[in-house]
């Protein structure tokens, strides 16, 4: 069922203390990397492991590290992305607040691998507690000589800064995040140049998700092959899934990639809440297309979910039952994306605004014939035409909702009311 690797000790309240972390074999991987491996060897090992970006895009980490130009004399930076703002997602938070040293160690090894001497962890501003835990871990690591000058006598120097955000989902997007760290407004940047070439302060920069980097110590300890032996052929290792919505036991679960969705929802999640019928599943965070009940056996890995017409995304599985109006869901989501658009490019800035107005009027029972077609055409005018993928993120769930529940959308317009009224009382 669960395969607890990154999350092995998260239930131990002392894991946040460096002594406990050390007693669990902590910082061995860092020591091994610094003392026994050259940076390229570390990158090789991570390539071998096949670990892919856990922040949403799923790009192989080792490959990305390889993009840093060898000949560029500028300093290099590592940025650990702990912005975690994708609705439904709260897995990085668990790692940061319950096993912060794991994150620090992963960041340290990765920094060494890419030749960085200053690493940032960007934590969303609302995560005050996780940020405190990370601050504490960083301090302890400095005291014990796992950070700072001449780490473990190897001559390698690394400083680490915990940088907190101010409430902006877009600052999870890597280029905006770099602007945010630079003290600019968190507006997305055009690519090229990619961060690996010109990122933070226009220097080569690697941005990786917290979970991605947290996996690195295990890869170094047990070898890339060991990691690659888990999961499927193309989707290696384990992944954290945030299970939320209408299930009995919501929570974060670490699974081997390729585990069927049904295992997560029914076996681990204990099935549907109060025995209601399943209506839809958002499998990878609010930006991913929805799945239907008959797809519940789909395997949770990058390829299978793509085949199923959706994405693994950040691994946030949102379970929606029969009592839910899909237009109501769509309204929540589009409101979010409109609110979070940085405002740089026209299609995202104005398109999300228009979509929100259309969808909420339908939800209010004031929809007009043709609204659905209009929404579809607007989505088409946003998809793939924006500076950063937020535009796509905004339209994918809407498009899929219309595709899968068109009759419900039409009903809503014709009858000026919901097919099922979503009224969820809190206990």
């Amino acid at each position, binding site marked *: 069922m669960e395969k607890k690797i990154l999350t092995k000790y998260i239930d131990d309240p002392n894991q946040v203390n460096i002594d406990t972390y050390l007693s669990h074999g902590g910082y061995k991987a860092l020591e091994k990397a610094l003392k026994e491996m050259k940076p390229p060897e570390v990158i090789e090992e991570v390539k071998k492991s096949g670990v892919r970006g856990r922040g949403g895009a799923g790009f192989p980490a080792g490959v990305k590290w390889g993009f840093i130009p060898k000949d560029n004399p500028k300093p290099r930076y590592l940025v650990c992305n702990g912005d975690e703002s994708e609705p439904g997602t709260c897995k990085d938070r668990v790692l940061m607040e319950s096993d912060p040293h794991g994150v620090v160690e992963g960041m340290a090894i990765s920094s060494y691998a890419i030749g960085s001497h200053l690493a940032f962890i960007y934590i969303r501003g609302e995560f005050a507690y996780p940020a405190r835990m990370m601050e504490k871990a960083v301090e302890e690591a400095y005291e014990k000589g796992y950070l700072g000058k001449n780490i473990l006598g190897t001559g390698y120097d690394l400083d680490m800064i915990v940088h907190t955000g101010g409430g902006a989902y877009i600052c999870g997007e890597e280029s905006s995040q770099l602007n945010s760290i630079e003290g600019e407004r968190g507006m997305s940047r055009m690519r090229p140049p990619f961060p690996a070439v010109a990122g933070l302060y226009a220097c080569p920069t690697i941005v990786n998700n917290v979970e991605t980097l947290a996996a690195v110590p295990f890869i170094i300890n047990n070898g890339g092959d060991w990691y690659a032996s888990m999961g499927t052929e193309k989707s290696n290792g384990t992944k954290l899934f945030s299970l939320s919505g209408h299930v009995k036991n919501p929570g974060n679960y670490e699974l081997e990639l390729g585990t069927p969705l049904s295992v997560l929802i029914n076996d681990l999640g204990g099935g549907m809440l109060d025995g209601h019928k399943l209506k839809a599943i958002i499998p990878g965070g609010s930006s991913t297309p929805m799945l239907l009940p008959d797809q519940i056996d789909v395997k949770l890995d990058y390829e299978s979910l793509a085949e199923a017409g959706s994405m693994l995304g950040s691994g946030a599985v949102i379970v929606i039952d029969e009592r839910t109006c899909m237009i109501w869901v769509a309204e929540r989501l589009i409101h979010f994306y409109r609110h979070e658009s940085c*405002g*740089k490019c*026209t299609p995202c*800035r104005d398109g999300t605004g*228009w979509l929100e107005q259309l969808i909420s009027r339908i939800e209010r029972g004031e929809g007009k014939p043709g609204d659905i077609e209009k929404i579809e055409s607007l989505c088409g*005018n946003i998809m793939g*035409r924006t500076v950063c993928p937020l535009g796509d993120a905004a339209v994918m769930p809407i498009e899929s909702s219309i595709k899968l529940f068109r009759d419900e959308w039409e009903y809503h317009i014709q009858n000026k009311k919901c097919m099922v009224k979503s009224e969820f009382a809190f206990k």
Partner: protein
Amino acid sequence: MSDDNNNINLTIDGQQVSVPRGTTVLEAARSIGIEIPTFCWHPKLKPAGACRICYVEIEKARTLMVSCATEVGPDMVVQTASEKVLQGRKAVLEFILMNHPLDCPTCDKGGECDLQNLTFKHGVDDSRFDFKKYRHIRDKNSTFDDLRIGPEIIRNQNRCILCYKCVRANKDIFGEQDLGAYQRGNITEINTPPGEQVDSLYSGNLVEICPVGALTNTDWRYKIRVWNTQTVDSVCSYCADGCNLTLWKNKQKVYRATSRRNDNIDEGWICDVGRYGYQVPMTEDRLTTPLIKKGDAQVPATWEEALGLISEKFKKIKDERGGVCIGGLISPNLDSLSLHTFSKFFRKILNSNNVDFRAGYKMLPEKSDDLYSKLTSLPFKIADIEKSDLIFVLDSDLTKEHPIVNLRVRKAITQKNASLFALNPIATQTGGLATDEMVYNIGALHALLNGLCVSLIDQNLTQYENASDLKNRLSPNTIEKASNISGIEVARINSLAKVIAEAKNISLIAGELLTSAINREELAGAIINLCLLAGIFDKGQVGVLSQAANSKGAEKLAVMPHLSERSILKLKQIWDNYPDNDGLALDQMIRSSIKEELDSMFIIGSNLMLEYPDGAVVKEGLEKLDFLVVADICETETTQLADVVLPLSTWVEYESSFVNLEGVEQKFNAAIKPIGFSLPAYQIINKISQGLKTPLFEMIDELIPEIKTLLQPDENQNSFETCAIEYIEEKQNPEFEIPLLVSNELHHFGYYTEKSNSLSSFCSEAFLEISPGLAEKLDVKEGSIVRVESEIGKINLPVKISEYIDNDVVRAYRNFSASPVNILQMRKRNVDRVKLTVVEGT
């Protein structure tokens, strides 16, 4: 298809094109005449890729690409007008129009709005958007949702399409900090920081680059529709930078001035003085007829009467006492035809060298200042500043004196990573970008320059052969002495010397304080030494920047009594005779008038009573004259003293040229006919000359060849020698210890601009700028009134506390007729000094 490594071949709409690597698809397309619409793109700004209107289709690319931000690639195949592109473009327009108000009929931008034009072109509308348009409401009762964000600028956020051009230009090009984007997403708005306003010298450009009517200015607003105007090519008549302008006129009225991009000079930016300065000619109180003094009143007269009287008087003086008893002063803001006619009238007709243009200067030399004029005749190009890795500014508050040169310096620093060093008696805005801006004790520049020379020699950083010899001649100057006198640490002087020696390409720029200084000949000498020691003549350019629109022209056209040999030769070339008498410089004219040796003065376009840095003396001088003729565009403190006043036309009323600080002659055209019965100066002069039975020309064009010859750039001059001139400290009266600087206020130039409503809206009254430290000492706050008292005069001024002044120097402004500060100044003192006493408001 193969590319050589710096050129890329690609296909756009079926056409082959080869462009340099790094070119954007947009620029490549334009280079072969294919237009792609843009909103957020601007030729002088980094691409933002924000508006998305410039989509193109590129083979093998999954999605539409923004051409403004996509670099060309080998064998790229680009479609700029495919189905998909047009669809994408329409979609963007539809998004932009969604919340864009349909107030074109009441919008000032109507008729010249990029959005309006593109919308018509693509037949897009906002009809699919059936919601109420979003309003950024400021004032619940206003239907226009206007917000005034500066003295001139009004913002209507509803119309803003968030191209961010204003914000980007303001920050990246002008380096200003008064406009930014606030909030985010679809409620983003363009605004000032809380409690501040957009009042920089460049603010008008923001309005000009706004593609829609989101930023408009009071100047043009609701006055006329753009399609009812015609445009005329013109040139700015204020400072010496020589920005190119387009004047927008209808019948006898000019409605606005905008930039006419010239990449050699202004790159499409102009300062507010140039933009709003056209309002001066448009003022109500222009002189429209001649006036003749009858008793103590000046009564309107015809040109016949006025000219008759003048020629009679001039003839009498000429015949009885000689033309040398008439003195001539003409403003360097006047055109080349007029300057030359003036000089020709005095030299050829009156056989006198009493011509001058240097009203605002300190004591003028009584012989030709050869070193100085040699230095000023060196070639200097604004655009070449970009080529320098070191920019070295001497005695210039560039932003105030040369706004456009300042932008070029900024560009060199921020975009071409040049470094800036400055020597100024007061911290400057430009200095903010400097690696080291050395604020020295006022008056110590000469000592400091000598110190630099010694430092170059002592650190043996010089290849100059006669260095050691110069060293001896320079003693007793030492670095230590320079340091003591200037207050700049020895280490800083030495490191500056090092930087200068090591730089590959230097632009040395000297400004107003130096050009108008008494000891400018000595300073010129010191600069020449420095250039020789550091090899600057061979590795860069030296710009001793002239001040007014045609000061350079005045120098080259020899509107001065004492000329270098070469100028005299030139004049002898074009004229058969040249007066062999020694002419009077302005100071001498005033003094001889007081001594009753000079009978008459002929002044054109200069308000000596305010400009001459010795208010009391000049008054006496002018009053003592038997016969004073003044031509000007409005009544001034000086015309009031005249026996005959003549109405002068302004540069928007005739056709001629200015010579900018680079020595480039730039033609300007007439936008309107002369106002009232006013005439261009060259015609006034010629009519007077005709009165003396000696017309200067039938057709003005006859003078053009002469002017051409005089404006010829001087053939290579690199025949410089060192000249050791010892620094002499100026004695001062201990009772008056605070140095006083007098300059143009940021939004003003000379004494005319207070007549421009727009410029007055930025600043309309004189004030005294003092340092926070001094304010504390005196226990005064912003707005307190102090009495400013010098050995010869006093005046009350409100204080303004400025972070730019960090020493006990005070600065006053010469642009306000209500409080003339020249009564404090002493022509023979290099540094004016005053004492302050608080009158009210501690």
